């Protein structure tokens, strides 16, 4: 397979994990501009585990997921009292706080005669597990998409479960859901924890593909895109955010003539879609029609 195509598909897979984490919060009715912070935590934690302490990749990724999920839980506890714009601003503030802390954080060790580890604004270089273990780009693409498929399968199963239905009810109207006896706050905290872990998983995979990260990677741009993918692709199914990623990175990338103007096209597409289809292309109504086979 063409190297360029492998790179694009890898990026689509990684961005899908981040987009899915933002989508999870959208499902329970919350808009997060801060999922890039958990992506960053996963990247740094997994990178430290493999590059500085020689852990195998799966354990490094697991460490990243644990750190991301714990951070998601810790942020959810105080912010779940907030709703709407206040919650969105709080998540953005947390993400910016994390990014600024990473700009200050130095934690280095000597590994094979080389100083490795987070080095403030210089970032974290030398996360070479994939290269040191001679895992090919195609092999790593398989790892990324294997994980995406497993995550999607888990989300599909969850959607059909009682928890999934309860999350949809909370997302539609939290007060009404509570009145019906659903623990809305606890469900939101659970979803925020899972979303944190999911974003961190993406970050852990990303740092091992890129071999380096820096705080600048985790700016609001990344968070806005992750959120926009869910809103473009649709809130009706977990395939929605992936459709959003494919439309942006995949389709617009294929149209090289407009690649330079992609951000303008992307911004315009988000604006138009939010007017025409406020819950995205694959919204709940369309998904219901498709799954029931009725017009």
């Amino acid at each position, binding site marked *: 397979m063409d190297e360029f195509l492998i*790179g694009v598909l890898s990026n689509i897979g990684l961005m899908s994990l981040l987009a899915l984490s933002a989508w999870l919060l959208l499902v329970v009715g919350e808009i997060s501009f801060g999922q890039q912070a958990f992506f960053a935590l996963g990247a740094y934690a997994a990178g430290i585990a493999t590059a500085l302490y020689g852990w195998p990749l799966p354990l490094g990724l697991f460490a990243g997921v644990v750190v991301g999920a714990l951070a998601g839980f810790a942020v959810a506890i105080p912010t779940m009292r907030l709703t709407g714009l206040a919650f969105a601003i709080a998540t953005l503030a947390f993400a910016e706080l994390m990014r600024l802390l990473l700009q200050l954080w130095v934690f280095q060790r000597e590994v094979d005669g080389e100083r490795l580890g987070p080095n403030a*604004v210089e970032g974290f270089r030398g996360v070479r597990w994939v290269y040191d273990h001679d895992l090919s780009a195609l092999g790593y693409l*398989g790892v990324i998409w294997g994980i995406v498929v497993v995550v999607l399968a888990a989300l599909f199963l969850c959607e059909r479960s009682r928890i999934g239905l309860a999350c949809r009810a909370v997302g539609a109207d939290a007060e009404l859901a509570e009145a019906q006896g659903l623990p809305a706050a606890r469900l939101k905290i659970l979803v925020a924890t899972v979303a944190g872990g999911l974003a961190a998983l993406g970050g852990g995979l990303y740092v091992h593909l*890129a071999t380096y990260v820096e705080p600048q990677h985790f700016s609001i741009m990344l968070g806005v895109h992750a959120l926009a993918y869910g809103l473009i692709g649709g809130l009706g199914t977990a395939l929605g955010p992936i459709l959003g990623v494919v439309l*942006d990175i995949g389709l617009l990338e294929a149209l090289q003539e407009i690649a330079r103007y992609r951000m303008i096209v992307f911004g315009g597409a988000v604006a138009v879609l939010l007017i025409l289809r406020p819950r995205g292309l694959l919204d709940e109504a369309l998904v219901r029609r498709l799954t029931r086979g009725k017009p």
Partner: protein
Amino acid sequence: MIWLWLMLSSAALGQTRLDAAIECAATARLMVYDCAIALADRQGRPVDGAKFKLGADMPSMPMAHNVRPVEADSTDAPGRYRARLELEMEGEWALRLEFSAPRRDVVVKRLIFDDKGGREGR
């Protein structure tokens, strides 16, 4: 199976790392740059016979700007290579040198690009 293999493969193949210095000059074509790359080992000795591709990603929006990697050509000067790179816009880019020889490795350098060319920033 992949997971099992990843779990079991613990012995790293890491050896001496490569380092690179890159400077790019703007060409007559918009957003196309001629890049000169000086390749050395950690002791500063020029590295000849390397095979690598030069790619780029924007740190301010990772994963969104996919630049098609280009093969670098060796020159007559020791440890010197060149490649022509086409970017999507000016600004800070992380150039990625993906080596297949002398061994599989990657070196990342950050450059700031404008209408004159690209220079290492930080």
